[in-house]
Structures are given as structure tokens and as C-alpha cells.
């Protein structure tokens, strides 16, 4: 009983799958924004490709950027929003008096986030092919590395947001939606980091996503996989995820200190 239990982690994932199965609106919601973004940027790409040398060389630059960005965004929401559902349902106390450990709750949130991201972004990726003849899988094996790093960064931000809400209450919920957009200009989704002012570039380079999007451009423009970008992103993610898990566990301890697990959702 002392170790991690895949059965308990699976039980929470099952709880989310029940919810998803019950509501087709939730499934549509998962895929809606990634698909709308893909369609919008597809048209922009089509328009710009005749006017831009860069896009002429690699027409998939913007579409790859927007779809990879959605991996980051959806994985973050997959952790934070699902955690908020437990708060809204006033279910947190039930979970914490069950044998579920906080670390298992974190792993369950990550599992659910993976499912949500695959469904949400998967639909947009699938539709990009008939809409624009664009295949994200043309990025080849490096796509797996990009996916992994964006997923890890999304989990880290999602856990930090969940910790913030656990610590300060549901008033902080809007940060879940806003947090990642504050980082977007620094990540170089649609432009190289070199475009940013010199003083801002060091900040950009401490974000794993910046290395991912630079790596994506290297694949599309230079047809090379930059292992250094991948490893930097992985190293940063290891640090950020470790920090985020520690902050979340500290927030759980704080909630136990002040009794907010019993009051959550009220």
C-alpha cells in the first residue's frame, strides 16, 4: 500500500473518461479552439505564402507553430481545468480521505491532460490535411521530441496554476487561461527568438517552448534536427516540472494546515 498505485491513478482517469463519455459538448469543446486556430492560420499562410520568401520555403511554418502551441496550451489546461472540476464538485475532501496520494493525483491529472491533448489537437491535425494539404507528421521523428517537451512544460504551468488556486481560492481561476498567453510572445511560436529585443532574449531562452519552436524552424527551414535545442528544453522542463510538483505539494500541505480542503468549492 505504500507505493504508487496505478489502479488509483487509473480510477481518477476513469472518472474523467466517464465525464467525457457523458457529454459530447466536452469533446467538441476540446477540439473546437485548436481547429478554429488551425483554420485561421491556414488561411493566413495561404495568403502570405505568395508574399513571403520564408513562407515560400516552408509553407507549414505557421500551421506547425499553431498546432504545436496548442499542444502546450491544451496540456496546461488539461491539468489545471480538470483540477478545478474537483474543486467545483466539492470532491477534493473525498479524494484526500481516500487512499489516493497527492503524487498520484498529480500523475492522474497528467494522464488526463495527455488524453485531452491528444483528442483536442489530434482532431485539428487530422483536419489540416483535407483543408490545406498540411501534414504535421511531415516533421518526422523530431515531432515526438517537440510533443514531449511541450507536454511537460504545459504540465508544469498547469500544476503551478492549480497550486495557486488551492492556495488562494477560486478567485485565481482566471489565471489558468491567462498565464500561458503571457508567455506566448516570448516563445517564438511564429518568429525566431532573434526577433525579440536583445534584453528580452535571455528570458525567452529560459522557456522550454522557445527551444521547441526554434527546433521546429530548424527542421522546416534547414531540414536538420537540433539535438541541442531538444536537450536544453528537456533539461529546463525537468527543473520546472520538479519545481511545479514541489509547489503543488506545498499547496496541499498549506490546505491541510488551514482546512481549505474541506471548504474548497464553497
Amino acid at each position: 500500500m505504500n507505493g504508487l498505485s496505478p489502479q488509483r491513478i487509473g480510477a481518477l482517469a476513469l472518472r474523467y473518461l466517464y465525464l467525457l463519455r457523458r457529454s459530447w459538448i466536452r469533446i467538441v469543446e476540446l477540439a473546437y479552439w485548436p481547429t478554429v486556430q488551425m483554420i485561421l492560420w491556414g488561411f493566413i499562410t495561404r495568403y502570405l505564402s505568395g508574399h513571403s520568401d520564408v513562407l515560400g520555403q516552408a509553407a507549414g511554418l505557421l500551421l506547425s507553430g499553431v498546432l504545436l502551441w496548442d499542444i502546450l496550451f491544451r496540456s496546461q489546461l488539461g491539468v489545471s481545468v480538470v483540477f478545478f472540476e474537483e474543486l467545483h464538485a466539492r470532491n477534493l475532501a473525498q479524494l484526500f480521505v481516500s487512499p489516493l496520494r497527492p503524487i498520484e493525483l498529480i500523475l492522474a491529472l497528467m494522464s488526463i491532460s495527455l488524453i485531452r491533448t491528444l483528442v483536442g489537437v489530434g482532431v485539428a491535425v487530422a483536419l489540416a490535411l483535407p483543408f490545406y494539404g498540411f501534414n504535421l507528421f511531415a516533421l518526422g521523428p523530431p515531432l515526438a521530441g517537440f510533443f514531449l517537451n511541450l507536454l511537460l512544460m504545459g504540465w508544469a504551468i498547469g500544476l503551478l496554476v492549480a497550486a495557486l488556486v488551492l492556495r488562494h481560492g477560486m478567485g485565481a481561476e482566471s489565471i489558468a487561461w491567462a498565464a500561458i498567453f503571457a508567455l506566448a510572445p516570448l516563445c517564438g511560436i511564429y518568429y525566431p527568438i532573434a526577433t525579440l529585443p536583445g534584453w528580452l532574449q535571455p528570458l525567452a531562452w529560459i522557456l522550454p517552448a522557445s527551444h521547441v519552436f526554434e527546433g521546429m524552424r530548424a527542421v522546416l527551414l534547414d531540414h536538420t534536427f537540433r539535438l541541442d535545442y531538444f536537450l536544453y528544453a528537456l533539461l529546463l522542463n525537468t527543473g520546472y516540472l520538479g519545481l511545479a510538483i514541489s509547489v503543488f505539494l506545498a499547496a496541499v500541505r498549506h490546505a491541510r494546515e488551514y482546512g481549505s480542503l474541506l471548504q474548497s468549492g464553497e
Partner: protein
Amino acid sequence: MAEPPVIQVENLRKYYGSVRAVDGISFDIARGTTCALLGGNGAGKTTTIAMLLGLLLPSSGRIHILGEEVPRHHHRVLPRMNFSSPYVDLPQRLTVAENLTVYARLYGVPRVRERLAALGRDLDIDAFFQRPYGSLSAGQKTRVALAKALLNEPEILLLDEPTASLDPDTADRMRGILTDYQRRGGATLLLASHNMSEVERLCDQVIMLRTGCIVASGAPRELIRRYGRKDMEEVFLDIARGIQSGEVIE
């Protein structure tokens, strides 16, 4: 040699700044007994139960449950305990069966379907197994919460107002189920309740709290005799209003 108590609480305190929610309480609960935590609003009942469950960290004091130190090792005892409260919900959009299945898996219950079927019969909830939990009446929700609390056949069951929102007939049936469950498995029950006839019927031991302190404890009949009253309702009112018996503890 006598078996050690399954719940041992020693000089337990919980302070929120200058507010003393629980202020140095000590008690033991023996295996197979039913104990009631009584007191008015803000007396410290829910705070005490939350500390026993590990939901709340004590400011000081010691808790041992089933021989394990809590909250330090509460993950060792949580699989052997369970909890029900009308003030803590289950996910509203999931059906009753889905909710119970999720919690059965969290508690590692073997043969989930059989267990759910048995609880459905015992608690008369099988008719709405396929309905969303959020669509149930308050009384139905209380029964489902009790089913969740019995899923893992706990050795220790903590109940916060177990029959709140139930009509007299259903409440009576629930008490019968709890009594049967306890006799069958030798479980220990700790309940917070405002229903004094329920306390008289179910409990071997009563702990009366007032402003975070134990002001009286003993068997219901003993307290009734000590206070010279005709039932626990009158004893409760005496204690809540600060009327002392000659033998009030602490």
C-alpha cells in the same frame, strides 16, 4: 491483555491564529464501539474529525489510529477507514454507479460489481444507479454518500451527521444498516450528530465538546443519570448552555 484502542487522541490542539478550534482534547475509542462527538456549532467536532482523517494538520498533540501515527502515516490507515458527510459532495455529473465505481477502485475494492450490487440492495439505491448524482434529492445523496463510505468495508467509519436530510423512516433504516454493519464486522464508528435519539440508540460512548474542549464524556445512560435528566436531548442543552453537573469531566 486488553486490546489497545483503535483511536487514541492525546492533548490534541488546533489553533487558527488566536482562535482555538480544538484545545487540548484527549480520548480513546475501543474497537467495535460507536462513539458520538457532540456539541453545538463551532464546538470543534468537524475539526476533530478532519484531523483524524488527515484533512487537517494538528497544531500539537498526538493521534494514533489502528496503531499508526496520524497524520504522519495516515496513508497506511486510510484504506481501512472511510468517511461520509452531507457537506462533502461527489461529482454531480457522474451517475451514482460511476461515482461508486471510481471510489471502489480508489479503495482497491475487489469484485466491484458485486459490491455495488450488495450496497444497492442494502441502502435501497439501486433504482437510481444510472441517474446523475447531481439530480438526486438530499436524502438520496446522503444514502449514496453512505454507500461510498461502506465500499471498502472500513474498520473505522467516521460519519458527520449520517442521517441529516433523511425522512424518519429512511433514517431509521440507515441506523439499522449501520448497527448491522458494525455487529457483522466489528467496525468502530465515530459520528458527529445533532440527533440525540440517534445518539442514544447507536452510541456506547459520548464525547461532549464545547469551544474546543471536552466538557463531559461517558455512556449516554451514565450522562443522563449524572445530569439528572430524562434523555440526551436535555443533557445536550445543559452542556451547550454551560450548566454544570456535579461530576463534569475537565
